[in-house]
């Protein structure tokens, strides 16, 4: 069968790819996509730990559901901010909106 | 069991016998028989869906024509039966144009995704008590999830066509589709509530009294939201031929356009099947325990009756404007479905073992409907009064100096 280590390695790889996306992307929506990848990796970790170590206690799945709720709300507000910034500055490249007022 | 009592299981065992012999002979791993049988099941269900589209297009054209007091196609074979084949041949032989600057991968995948998202729903439809594609215990939620693939395909189609009108049409379509998902999910929750489970076969088996009797308002909300989700009149702004020039699939020709159309017809029939399953008792009916084949007959009868109602609505009602559509959704359907969810949940739990359980729920639905109609009348009257304060004056006469009372 599948040992726990495979899931953890997969989640670690997904998290690192998401981290690279957050640091390296210029487009603000691209940064948000990196954050989404990291949250996906966290969910895989949580559910894998629930399944392999303590399947009777529902805490693992509840935690994963909370992460879903948090990621959905964060994407909503983040994209609203991105659209608002685009209306003012006409750009959403992260290295061009680095000043509060010009 | 004989072949009439359970044809599918009979065929299944016969094929399994043959395949097991072959697998033992070739020394393949043990799960191969099951895998091949599942694969054959998948192919049969998918092909059934696609073949049904041929019949549905003919039926649609005939029924719509009769509503419009004309005959419909009657040249291509007796009663025009071969018209759909003629349409298919025409679409296949059309030139396949890709607009310049179109995003090739999205452009080609969008129609596939649109049809796939409909056929995926057929995986959880139970034809009888034992003939289910995949008996998962979150079937209702799976249906909701698969619907969102269709939305993605609309967005991809509109974006990749490199056409402003396609993009605008795609935005409007996506706005409509994701708005009407909210009352759809809420109305889907009510059979789940009444059956205490999300598995579709469990919902069908829990319908001692059909859920349309226990919850007629959620049935209407579900039907309305589904008609909006599939983009039929009166909500067919997605493809309003007279307005936005066919919306997000302007740039599609030939078989790709045929796939969009096929997906839409199949989607209409699929939601009829789902309405039959969730609200009308599915495959239940007399004598269905001894002859499971009758379950398929009952389900298809109920589905075709609901499909006839969908076609009736399409032929009768005019198109709704986009702002009226949004107002109807957010200001009417969502509060109504929330109220119905709360009312049904409270009453179902409070009167669970009561003998008048059915009548109480039905009565609650009628009361909510009456209150809603009353609220609509009062607000409608108020709007009319606001519009009446314009003074009526004859044309081409200058207004007097003092303002009228």
């Amino acid at each position, binding site marked *: 069968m599948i040992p*726990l280590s495979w899931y953890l390695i997969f989640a670690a790889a997904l998290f690192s*790819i998401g981290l690279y996306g957050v640091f390296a992307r210029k487009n603000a929506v691209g940064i948000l*996509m990196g954050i989404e990848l990291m949250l996906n990796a966290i*969910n895989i970790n949580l559910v894998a730990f629930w399944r392999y170590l303590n399947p009777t206690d529902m805490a693992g799945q509840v935690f994963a559901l909370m992460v879903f709720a948090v990621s959905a709300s964060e994407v909503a507000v983040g994209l*609203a901010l991105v659209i608002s910034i685009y209306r003012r500055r006409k750009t959403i490249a992260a290295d061009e909106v680095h000043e509060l007022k010009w | 069991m004989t072949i009439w009592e359970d044809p599918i299981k009979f065929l299944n065992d016969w094929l399994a016998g043959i395949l097991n012999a072959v697998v033992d002979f070739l020394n393949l791993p043990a799960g191969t028989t099951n895998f091949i049988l599942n694969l054959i099941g998948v192919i049969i269900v998918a092909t059934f869906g696609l073949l049904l589209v041929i019949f549905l297009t003919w039926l649609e054209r005939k029924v719509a024509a009769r509503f419009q007091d004309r005959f419909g196609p009657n040249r291509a074979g007796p009663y025009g039966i071969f018209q759909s084949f003629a349409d298919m041949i025409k679409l296949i032989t059309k030139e396949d144009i890709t607009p310049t600057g179109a995003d090739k991968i999205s452009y080609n995948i969008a129609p596939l995704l649109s049809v796939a998202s409909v056929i995926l729903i057929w995986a959880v439809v139970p034809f009888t008590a034992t003939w289910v594609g995949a008996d998962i215990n979150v079937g209702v*939620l799976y249906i909701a999830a698969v619907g969102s693939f269709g939305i*993605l395909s609309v*967005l991809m189609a509109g974006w990749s066509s490199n056409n402003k009108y396609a993009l605008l049409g795609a935005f409007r379509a*996506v706005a409509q589709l994701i708005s009407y998902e909210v009352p759809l999910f809420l109305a889907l929750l009510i059979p789940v509530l009444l059956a205490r489970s999300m598995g579709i076969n469990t919902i069908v088996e829990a319908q001692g009294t059909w859920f349309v009797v226990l919850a007629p308002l959620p049935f209407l909300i579900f039907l309305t939201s589904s008609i909006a989700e599939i983009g039929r009149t009166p909500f067919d702004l997605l493809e309003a031929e007279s307005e936005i020039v066919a919306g997000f699939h302007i740039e599609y020709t030939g078989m790709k356009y045929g796939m969009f159309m096929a997906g839409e017809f199949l989607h209409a029939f699929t939601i009829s099947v789902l309405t039959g399953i969730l609200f009308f008792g599915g495959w239940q009916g007399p004598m269905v325990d001894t002859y499971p084949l009758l379950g398929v007959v009952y389900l298809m009868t109920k589905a075709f009756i609901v499909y006839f109602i969908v076609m009736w609505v399409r032929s009768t009602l005019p198109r709704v404007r986009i702002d009226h559509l949004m107002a109807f959704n957010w200001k009417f359907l969502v509060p109504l479905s929330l109220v119905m969810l709360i009312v049904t949940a409270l009453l179902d739990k409070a009167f669970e073992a009561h003998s008048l359980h059915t009548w109480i729920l039905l009565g609650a639905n009628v009361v909510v409907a009456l209150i809603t109609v009353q609220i609509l009348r009062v607000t409608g009257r108020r709007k009319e009064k606001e519009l009446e304060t314009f003074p009526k004056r004859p044309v081409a006469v200058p207004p007097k100096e003092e303002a009228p009372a």
Partner: protein
Amino acid sequence: MSPIQLTFLAVAAFSLVSALMVVTRPNMVHAALYLVVASFGVAALFVLLGAPYLAVIQVVVYIGAIAILMIIAIMLTRRIASEDLVVVNAQAGWAAVLAAILFFSLLIILGGWDSFGALAGELPPGSVDPAALGEALVSPQAFVIPFEVASVLLLAALIGAIVIAWRSSRAGG
């Protein structure tokens, strides 16, 4: 290699390749579509892990809502002149090094943990049913308070997103 292991390897490889495409494609709509594929791979892994409800919720939330929201935001915030041909900013090399360091240190730390290679036990009979999850979410002895706080958070995010993206040129703002 049992079929389940092959399935896991195929889905995981598919998902990781899509995730790499998400962070490297210059065309943002393509990146969003690859995000959809990666989320779908993660949903398949949830099914393998015995949490079908979470798998379907993953599809509904990530693919049905978040990905569509991102694609619409990308379409609304395009620069008309040119698509950004430069994907990464100046610190991209250091970002890659940091990601690699994080990955390997996670592996080293987890590798020293004794349950690292644990195999899955049997699932207790009621736990695949959503009813168990539902009870855990609304039972006062379980997690009803985080559930309510999450709903308040979602309400706040809903109102906040509308207020932030409201066009202030309208009368009254």
